């Protein structure tokens, strides 16, 4: 078994966003994810890289897949996990989120994995806590491990990111996945298109070198990858398009649209998917779909993220 090698370029204790990472750091995370998965698959037991470490899942917003993915990643590295979840804002409980996090930290954890509906919450916790902080999604701001796992999936399928045309389709305004993908993909040299209803796709993205499109049918023949984002009904104060039916008419990936696409197009979705809204079942389950590979890669990326953040001091506790 090849022992995974801790990348010498890594210096960070927190993973808060992809916007601030360098190309070298992003590649280090992706490579590390592959190495850890190879090592885990070759081993008959869990790895022992994070033996004796404790990781807290601190979820202020509902999540099933990301939470389980982080838990499993921690366990495969030999760490212990504790789970804390609370829906609703801290005010409804009469405790601030900072106090909640400090309480969990005082139980002796080495890292907290934080999900919250408000942008910046994990950044703020990283300034208030002594342990490592991993952002598992902060409102519409960023979801760095999701961005990384999407990029890893594309890299595995295509062998590269540079020069590819990747379209993010749907609710860009409220999507943390979109933002993390934009930063990560741009840094690695992809051409990124954001596509969706004009009320959810700001023209201002052009100022960051991102192409803005309203018609999926027009861009479809050029795309190597489609990442179909979930409509975030829960983050919309008023519905930004007339009906779900109209949205599906304009943006749902279906069999007819598959015919207009490149023959090797990759269909991705961060999930959970609304079948019939963002994509039809035959596309979700079809040969171009890599949705389940994204889920597996999620664990690899989170193993890498946990190990890198916690191993920064040479593994010393």
């Amino acid at each position, binding site marked *: 078994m090849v022992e995974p090698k801790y990348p010498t370029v890594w210096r960070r204790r927190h993973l808060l966003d992809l916007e601030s990472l360098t190309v070298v750091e992003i590649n280090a995370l992706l490579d590390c994810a592959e190495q850890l998965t190879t090592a885990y698959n070759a081993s008959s037991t869990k790895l022992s890289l994070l033996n004796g470490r404790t990781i807290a899942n601190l979820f202020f917003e509902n999540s099933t897949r990301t939470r389980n993915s982080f838990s499993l990643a921690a366990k495969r590295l030999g760490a212990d996990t504790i789970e804390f979840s609370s829906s609703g*804002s*801290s005010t409804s409980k009469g405790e601030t989120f900072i106090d909640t996090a400090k309480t969990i930290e005082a139980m002796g954890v080495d890292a907290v994995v934080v999900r*919250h*509906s*408000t*942008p910046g919450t994990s950044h703020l916790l990283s300034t208030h806590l002594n342990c490592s902080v991993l952002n598992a999604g902060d409102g519409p701001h*960023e979801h760095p491990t999701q961005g990384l796992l999407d990029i890893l999936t594309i890299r595995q399928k295509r062998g590269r990111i540079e020069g590819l045309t990747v379209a993010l389709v749907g609710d860009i305004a409220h999507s943390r996945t979109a*933002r993390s993908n934009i930063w990560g993909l741009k840094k690695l040299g992809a051409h990124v298109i954001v596509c969706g209803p004009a009320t959810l796709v700001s023209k*201002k993205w052009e100022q960051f070198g991102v192409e803005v499109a309203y018609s999926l049918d027009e861009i479809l023949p050029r795309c190597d990858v489609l990442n179909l984002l979930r409509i975030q009904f829960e983050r919309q*104060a008023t519905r930004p398009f007339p009906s779900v039916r109209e949205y599906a008419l304009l943006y749902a990936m279906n069999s007819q649209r598959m015919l207009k696409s490149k023959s090797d197009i990759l269909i991705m979705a961060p999930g959970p998917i609304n079948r019939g809204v963002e994509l039809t079942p035959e596309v979700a389950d079809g040969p171009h779909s890599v949705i389940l590979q994204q889920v597996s890669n999620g664990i690899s990326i989170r193993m890498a993220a946990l190990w890198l953040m916690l191993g920064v001091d040479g593994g010393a506790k």
Partner: protein
Amino acid sequence: MEADRNLSWLIENGRIIDPSQRLDRVGRLLLIGGRVAALDPLDGDIPADCSRVDASGCVVAPGLVDIATELGEPGLEEDETIATGTIAALAGGYTSLACSASTDPPIDTASDVEFVRQKAAKADNARVYVIGCVSKGRGGEELAEIGSLVEAGAIALSDSPLPMGNTALLRKALEYCLMFNRPIIDRPEVRSLTRDGVMHEGLTQLVLGLAPMPAEAEDLATARDLRLLESTGGRLHLNSISTAGSIDIIRRAKDRGTIVTVDTRIMNLCFDDECLRTFDANYKVNPPLRSRRDVDLCLEAIADSTIDMITSGHQPKSLEKKMQELDAVPFGVTSLDTCLAQAITYLISTGKLDWKRAIDCFSTQPSRMLGIDAGTLTIGSPADVVVIDPGVNWIVEPHQLRSRSRNTPLLNQTLKGRARMVWVGGVLKYQLAVA
């Protein structure tokens, strides 16, 4: 106290700046019996027992005047009290405040006005003038008893920082106030465009994913307010202007002869929306920190008097309120303690604002708008005077703040300049402890 009032003071060697008299020169200012007695008095006119102050290197100016200052009472004592707010005011060089009606309950009856005035008299720090509500309970539905409020001493009417969302009510209020010659102070904002908003809509907001507050929300309400002002002939003050669009609309209105007064807040002149990248809740203010272009145009508008004055935007909030998630955190910064130093550090030292216009913006113009006897050093006027040391560096340590709250992004920053001595009605109310 009566004995104090008979004291006389001679402030010597300072640079006396009084925009009301277009005065800016080194000289001597004599205060006797609570009033300004003379500028450059003859030696024979100076009382023998006069206390002398050497103001070398300092600016001597009429005490600063703030409007729409939140003083916490009644009901929000966890944020501020009239006693703490008025001490913070003195330490910041302010001698008069017009306090906001945004209390709990709001100041919408004569007895509320009397309560605030009594508390202020008891505190006996800076002078406090009371702004009454335009609408009952600040509900925006029906007029408060404006006549009674004015009779009890209200000098202006405002629901600010809540905007006058109800256009018909604003029109009615502008007409009704014609009887009392009192200004309506409105914070122009279309709430349906800013609901749940956290920060200025722009590139930074796009990246951070925080809920947007578009500039049009202010522009549209500004245009509406001015149109209503022109048709009613009332008195209107636009509170906390911050956008390029509303400045353009106001400039055109002033050019065609519309009489309106306008303020902007110190925060909107010093910081832009990039500050929110820290996710520091102390940068969450309303109006939100705008783009760099808006900030530059606000400064330009100060220079050409499209914007008449600068306010502190003092909105103290207790620590537990500011420790919440960014979308739940209330808007506001505590500002009275630091506003003057912030202006010196960020605007005057950098050449963006000259001293004469600064004193005009912080003292003379707000006094005129409120119609109070302040903002001037003319002979016979009340001796509300500040001596400002423009060169002293100080660190904004928590214990330095006299306000009950600590919600300011300036905490632990080094600022340049601060008030050294402050007189209210000829009585020395504040003196900076010598380090």
